[in-house]
């Protein structure tokens, strides 16, 4: 099942077109075939194990901070 929240790209394997996406509680791999220009530090949304879009970092961080505060 996908996570409908932005994750942060922490590693890119350009040869395999794979990104490691960090969701704090877990990390998942996703294909970068649709967005080969994605880079480490970008916040992304993943669907069916594929990176489908980036989310501006300020928007992503603000949202994740709100989620964290809600969980506290």
């Amino acid at each position: 099942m996908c996570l409908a929240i932005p994750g942060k790209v922490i590693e890119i394997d350009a040869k395999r077109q794979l990104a490691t996406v960090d969701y704090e509680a877990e990390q998942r791999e996703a294909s970068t075939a649709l967005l080969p220009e994605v880079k480490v530090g970008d916040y992304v949304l993943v669907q069916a194990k594929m990176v489908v879009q980036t989310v501006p970092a300020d928007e992503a961080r603000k949202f994740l901070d709100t989620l964290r505060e809600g969980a506290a």
Partner: protein
Amino acid sequence: MTAAMAPDELFLRYAYSCAEVQRDHLHAVTDGELAKVRRMLDREDATDDAFLKSVYPAAFRRLELIAKETKSAPLTTETLDAYFIVYHNAFIDAGDGSYAKLPRWTCEYCKVHVARVTEVLVQDGHRAFRIEPYEHAVFRQAGVSGDLVPEAKAGDLVVIHQGWAVKTVEPSYYERLKKAYQATKLFSGLTQKAQALRS
């Protein structure tokens, strides 16, 4: 020619990813409920209408509104297409229900658009479509999962919702839907409310 899709299957295709947002943003859906919806989407379990109404109360409320306005039934293919393709974005911009409290980027991600498939990729058994906007649509997705629409090919128009292609659509049908349903009082009311929120 592709066999016509049953309305319950069409609803699940459109709405499945909304349950992910409800789980992750609103904590309104549990992992178990989401998994159950996914099993229905994958046709592993029979559709349970009462359960779907409990997971998607806002969607069913809006479908009832549209059905009442247009004197149709809520769960027909055309009412579903009208809701998701024509009205859905208007409900979002009007701040209807939970959209009033979701962040801006989520609201934009939740919108439904028509896009043109420019490339089909197949990787590890999954299909994905690189897409470009059709008409004046503005969205951030570079691509979507094509797993639900295996018949789509480059050049086809698809309806997209969050990270999914939901179905192919013919331009003439899309234009007819817009013409018919954007002329309703419900649509103009939503548009006016959205304008008021922006001002």
